[in-house]
Every structure is written in structure tokens, then in C-alpha cells.
């Protein structure tokens, strides 16, 4: 199983959970399963512009449809923006 880890603001929106195990075949599928998928993706189904995603420490914003390996760690991170 891979694991998806959420930042605090998304964890609060997910009922207090900051980690979700997944057997989804791709990163996009794993993120789409989340109860906060509507906050990660925009209404067109694209990753919101200021949401960053890392898989095992590597930037994966442009690799959403790549296979997600068992044991992978996915981190959803808000970009450094705003004030």
C-alpha cells in the first residue's frame, strides 16, 4: 500500500486524518479517492495551481498518471503563497 499524507488544513477537512493508505494504480487515482479531492483538484479535474505533490520526495505535479508503487509516500503540500 502507498500512503498519502496531507497538510494540516486538509487533514482538518478530512475529519482529522492526515494520512490515507491507498492501493490506487496511479497518483491521480490516489488523490481522487481522498475526501478532500475537491480541494486538491479544480472543477475541471486539474490539480489546483498552488497545490504541490511529491512522491518519495520527487516533484510529481506533472506525473499524475504515472503508476504509483506499493510503499510509495505521497505528500500533498500547499505552495508557498499568500500572506
Amino acid at each position: 500500500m502507498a500512503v498519502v499524507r496531507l497538510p494540516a488544513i486538509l487533514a482538518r477537512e478530512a475529519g482529522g486524518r492526515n494520512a490515507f493508505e491507498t492501493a490506487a494504480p496511479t497518483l491521480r487515482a490516489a488523490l481522487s479517492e481522498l475526501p478532500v479531492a475537491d480541494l486538491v483538484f479544480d472543477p475541471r479535474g486539474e490539480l489546483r495551481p498552488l497545490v504541490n505533490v511529491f512522491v518519495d520526495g520527487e516533484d510529481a505535479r506533472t506525473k499524475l498518471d504515472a503508476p504509483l508503487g506499493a510503499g510509495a509516500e505521497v505528500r500533498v503540500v500547499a505552495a508557498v503563497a499568500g500572506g
Partner: protein
Amino acid sequence: MARAVLVGTKKGLFFVRDGAVEGPELPGWSVNHAVRDPRSGTIYAATNHVVFGNTVHRSADDGSTWERAEPIELDGLELGETWHVEPGRADEPERLYLGAVPGVLLRSDDGGRTWRSVRGLTDHPTRERWQPGFGGMCCHSIQLDPDDDARMYVAISAAGTFRTDDGGETWAPMNRNVAADFHPEVYPEVGQCVHKLLLHPARPERLWQQNHCGVYRSDDRGETWDRLDGNGLPSAFGFPIALHPDDPDVAYVVPEDGDRRLTSDGRLGVYRTTDGGASWQLHADGLPERAWSVVLREGMAWDEQGPVLGTQAGSVWSLEQGRWHELARDLPPILSVELA
């Protein structure tokens, strides 16, 4: 229950009651407006996040836990910031209205879980002539006529005021005599920059608006407007307006220097009329005499105990026995206040 001030800020929702500040709830979310539904006690908040988008949260347990609305989708348009939640009528307990960018009114018939746009306004034939203001093309004011279940009003910046007499199927512009100094026509059919629109509940044919270009009152359901800012106000420009809940002739505004978006005369100047807007007097005892922090469009509210305002500098002020008292200070920039 003690009087509570719901304070929406750039960094979450606070409660001010019994001299204490509680919160923030919804930390990280920018709360353009929050209101307690008098029918159910549920609190609704128009919530926006620069990274995670725009939505509505609701709490049925006084802010202890929150639920987010289902994703809000607009056919052919992209939802921007959510601005104002207005509970529906007493005999429609699950109905609420939401104003948002881009100049859209949404309706919920399930207590705020799902929202869909009111097509008569979304598809309005004048929409191509509407323009966004600094806050986006926001629908920020929603007023229900208490005497007529089919009549309601919205105001959009910068599209103007619109009225429906058929429950939202069709909407007529209500902008006659209202100036748009930034527009080539000055008095166009639509395109006015309303900053806040209110209906007086005791005299529902009477509407007030603080506009980008003046303070106005209508006594005929928006058909015609009289401009009121010529006698005692230091500026025609401002954002909030607050109405006495019982006396239709009493209103408060907070003028700003329109060019610089600073307080007029460098003070937190609240001005009151007691004669329907024919004259205005400074009513600022207790407020700081040197201040440049303004009050935004949702930054004033009024109940039987009197008016309350919140500033961009994070202070909440309450008028008690003719003098303003600071209920809270050093909060994040305040976007809205409501009384519950």
C-alpha cells in the same frame, strides 16, 4: 444565549462574546461572511483559500465541528470567491442563498450541502456588460422581501442592483439614477458598482445602498433612487452600511477617501443619519481620532442592542449608550461581522 459577534477574518472565524474572544475556527480559511441561521442555529461561512479554492462551511454545533459543502459547479462559468450566505424564509427551512464570483447567485434546498446557480441571473441578458471590481465580480448582497415570497434583490459589483418578482426566474436591473462615474454613460442600465445593499425589514419597499459613487435610498423597491451623500458626509465613497432594525430613517456609513481607500480625514469616522439620509452627523465618540483602517462591506451589523463594526486592523467596536467600546482587538484583518 449571550449576544455573540461572529467575526470573519482573513485567517478564520472568531466569536466575541461576554468580553472574550474564541477561535479561530476554520483556521487558514478566509471568511468573507459568516452568519447564524435564525431558523436552525446552524452557522454558515463563505470560505475561501488561495490554494484550495472556494466553498461554504456549516456548523450545527456552534463551531465545534464543520462540514464543507459538496463541490460547487457552475455550468460554463468558474466559481470564484464566495461572498455572502443569506438564510431563506421561515417556511423554507432548508433553503439558503449564496452570492459569489463571477456575479452569481446560488441556492441550496438541503441546508447548505449542495448549491446550484439561479439561472435567471447567471444567464442574464445584460451579463456581457458587467465588469469585475477589485473584489472580483462579486454578488455580495442578497435581500429577501419579508412581505412577498417571490421578491428578492441582489447586488453585484460592478453590475448593479437586480430585483426578481417571480422567485428568481427573471431579474430586472434596478439602477435608475444611480451613478457610475467610471462608466462612459454615467447612468447606464447596468454596470453600477454597488458596495452594499440592504432592505429595511420594517419597511420593505425601502432600500439603501452604499455605492462606489454615493449613498442612495429607494422608497419604491429599487425603481428609482435618491442620492444622499451631499449633506454632512466627507466622501461619497465607502463600503458598509448598517440600518436600525426598527427605525427605517436611521442608518450608519463609514466613508472612505475613494482615491486612496483610506479613512476620510484620517479618522475612523462613523456617520449617522436619523432623517432618512437628508443629513449626516459624525457619531464616533470612543473611536480613535487618528486611524487609517477601514471597514469593509460586511464589516457592520446591527441588532436590538445596537450596531457593531469590525476593522481591517482587527478591532471589533460596539456602540453602547452613545459611545463606541472596543470589544476585541488585534484579530486578523476583519472581513465581516454578524450578530447572533
